[in-house]
């Protein structure tokens, strides 16, 4: 025995390893103040990094640059309304996605579902507008937008429920179908070959201005929708079924939920809300249509929903932040003669930090004290106490 023991130690000595410097473990839960602090630190770090980048690349004072973010988003009453209506549309699309995502149905087709709602609205405005009063025209536009959105949402849902197709691919491809259909409409409606069908062709069916404000109606509709989606998901039987199906299809089957029915029903809702957003976008905001009208917001909304952890009220903040960054960044580009790329870099850095800080919300890092230099050890212990 001693011989083997000796041998073993000999061979082991050559490979003596030091303890790892730190290790990572999963958090059980995180107090609210800590999660807010982590996010605040992330935003500050992002601003610091983009500030350094600004000085390095352009020589501009980063603080002056940041100031114009606020000017761009809130500099005048027009800008405030513009920012708010942009927030409303983005928020509305995120709300539309939320029931599907709660059900773990990865709908990447909001872009197309909104756009097809836009197309249906514009088509009715163009074809029927002028022949009937607005009181009839507007409900007709709304209904067709809802129907179009539902169609785009429910096709992938039916295929998923019946044959288990991949909803991510299916919904994604439906986006391109919607874009091509809009291109067709543009060619048919505007013989001049313009790539926009504008207010001159869509004269009727504009949504009324509440209190003289162009966008107030849109904003109010989305505000009401926020509350409705919240209540629907949290307090209705449908919302409960959505959660159960999303968490575990086996449990849903076990208690007798008709999983196929829930999938289809939820995507009807999700598609209808996307269609509604398309209706608001055309009839309430742009009064025109082109194939880029939704402008990627169908995808940005996915990020809004995730960042807010599917809580409709947090989504208000998340969509406001994204719209603010967008408006501010384009202001900065024009003011300082920087191109659009600069603002996209800054937006990208901020989002990277915001999403990256999720790691620190879910995990914590333990420093191995024995590996620290002696003068740091005391501090490390103090830090740890504070954290606990």
């Amino acid at each position, binding site marked *: 025995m001693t011989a083997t023991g000796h041998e073993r130690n000999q061979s082991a000595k050559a490979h003596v390893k030091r*303890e790892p410097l730190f290790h990572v473990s999963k958090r059980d839960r995180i107090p609210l103040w800590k999660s807010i602090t982590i996010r605040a630190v992330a935003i500050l770090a992002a601003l610091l990094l983009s500030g350094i980048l600004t000085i390095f690349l352009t020589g501009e004072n980063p603080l002056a640059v940041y100031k114009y973010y606020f000017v761009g988003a809130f500099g005048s009453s027009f800008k405030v309304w513009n920012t708010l209506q942009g927030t409303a549309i983005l928020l509305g699309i995120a709300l539309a996605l939320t029931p599907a995502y709660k059900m773990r149905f990865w709908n990447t087709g909001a872009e197309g579902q909104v756009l097809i709602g836009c197309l249906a609205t514009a088509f009715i405005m163009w074809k029927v507008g002028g022949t009937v009063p607005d009181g009839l025209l507007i409900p007709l536009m709304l209904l067709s937008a809802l129907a179009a959105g539902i169609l785009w949402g429910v096709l992938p849902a039916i295929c998923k429920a019946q044959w288990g197709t991949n909803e991510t691919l299916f919904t994604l491809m439906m986006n391109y179908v919607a874009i091509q259909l809009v291109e067709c409409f543009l060619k048919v409606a505007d013989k001049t070959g313009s790539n926009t069908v504008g207010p001159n062709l869509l004269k009727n069916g504009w949504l009324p201005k509440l209190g003289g404000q162009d966008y107030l109606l849109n904003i109010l509709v989305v505000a009401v929708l926020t509350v409705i989606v919240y209540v629907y998901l949290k307090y209705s039987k449908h919302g409960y079924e959505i959660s159960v199906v999303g968490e575990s299809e086996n449990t849903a089957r*076990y208690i007798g939920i008709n999983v196929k029915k829930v999938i289809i029903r939820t995507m009807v809702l999700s598609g209808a809300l996307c269609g509604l957003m398309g209706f608001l976008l055309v009839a309430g905001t742009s009064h025109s249509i082109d194939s880029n009208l939704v402008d990627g917001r169908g995808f940005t909304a996915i990020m809004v929903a995730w960042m807010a952890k599917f809580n409709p009220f947090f989504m208000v903040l998340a969509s406001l932040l994204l719209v603010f960054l967008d408006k501010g960044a384009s202001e900065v580009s024009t003011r300082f003669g920087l191109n659009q790329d600069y603002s996209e870099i800054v937006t990208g850095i901020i989002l990277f930090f915001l999403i990256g800080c999720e790691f620190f919300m879910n995990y914590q890092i333990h420093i191995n004290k024995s590996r620290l230099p002696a003068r740091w050890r005391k501090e490390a212990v103090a830090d740890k106490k504070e954290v*606990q």
Partner: protein
Amino acid sequence: MNETVSEKKVALELRHITKRFGSEVIANRDVSLQVLHGEILAILGENGSGKTTLMNMIAGIYFPDEGEIFVDGEKVTIASPADAFRYRIGMIHQHFKLVDVFTSTENIVLGIRDDQRFNLKEAAARVAEISARYGFELDPNKKIYNMSVSEKQTVEIVKVLYRGADILILDEPTAVLTPQETEKLFAVLRRMRDDGKSIIIITHKMHEVLSISDRVAILRRGEYVDTVVTKDTDETALTEMMVGHKISLNIERSDPVNVCDRLTVKDIRMTTREGVEVLKDINFVARAGEILGIAGIAGSGQRELLESIAGLRHLDSGEILYDNPKTGETVNLCDRTPIQIRDMGVRLSFVPEDRLGMGLVGNMDITDNMMLRSYRKGHSMFLNRKSPKELAEHIIESLEVVTPSVSTPVRRLSGGNVQKVLVGREISSTPAVLMAAYPVRGLDINSSYTIYNLLNQQKKNGVAVIFVGEDLDVLLELCDRIMVIGSGKITGVVDARCATKEQLGLLMTSDTAHKPTAEEESASTRTEEEKSIVTATEAGKGEQQHDSNRT
């Protein structure tokens, strides 16, 4: 310490090992223990007492927060499984890590890095040599997918020996074995011990600890309690050390009263989508006021059987007849959805084996989990959380569920408390049939006995209880009749009061063409007295069959 200790040298020593997960969970606190050369040390402890965590630190999977490890008196740092092998420590995990399409030899040499040329033939010869030395039955060229669970385990053990391990750690090796296979494994372990190897075996089955180990180290809630010499202790003393206080280990089995047929399963057959026949002509009766045990090697069709009764699976043929105790009507549950079954007035409760993946939703709180069964009630579009909340509070109180509040997600509760929540919900609807699949899997002794008592209570209330279990001792103590299932077939029904473990073990593996005889098929029409005697004769049949297969 005892004189045997002084004779043998210390192979492995742990000093003041502490391991934390997160800021709240302390898996091991200040654990110190010794393993000698040429001994079998059992690590005994309830679930969550930190046995596996401790072993994972020796095997290099976790790294201790505090404390030191010594191998042959030398302080070592084990930061990875490769380090562990350098110190000749090998661990056999509960879940096998084998490549299905490879042979046993290929799996054994997989990942070995030495300077020698790769020679599969030589390796196979060495595998055969190791097998012969310790008495393993292992074919070096058999593919893993052709192997039984016990053979796969053998591959894992030989893999560790092939790499020259002198200290072997086995994490609950008997959980997947029949009694006969367990005996074979123990014989091999004894031979390895006599060869001078140190063996650490994790288990919570008391009789195994007593039969295999030389010494027992007891852990309780992450802390080291004591190490005792096995021959100087007994079951009661060990249990007391493990739990921390005296508990009675008796299951009170009352005699069945007012027994009548409740659920009759006739000739059911089921084929999976892949075309595998998982249930073959199953016939049995579950009676009110009785606990019917179902024994069998895991994956023999138990799950499919219960799920098809609960309306979750499509059957090829057969009938599941339920006698309604209120109306006296008989209805067929075959190919009905769970909702339809409920609407027919059938009071069927089901505790599935996958608690958090099927019975409950892990991310929802206790109230919302109570609602799973009842949320549909009423015509309102909105949920009523008031009565589920009251039910949740009632279950927490009456079953002593340990939880911070009713709004804690159930996945945060310990295994025993999760199970209390699930069983509590299922019996709250006053069922006529209660099916429970492995209801004590992963539960500590106290929680297990709570569950046994609940099942017994249901039986006294006249419920037909169907209990799928894995611990044969418990099945024999708890049930009235035990039905054994092997490869989707019923291989026998025995009276639990006079059957033995060996009988059950033989029936579990006698899955060769044992067609249900006329006797068995007519079992449902027999009178009460006759029924309870469907025992030794059939068990004996199984035995004979098994023997004739061997010779």
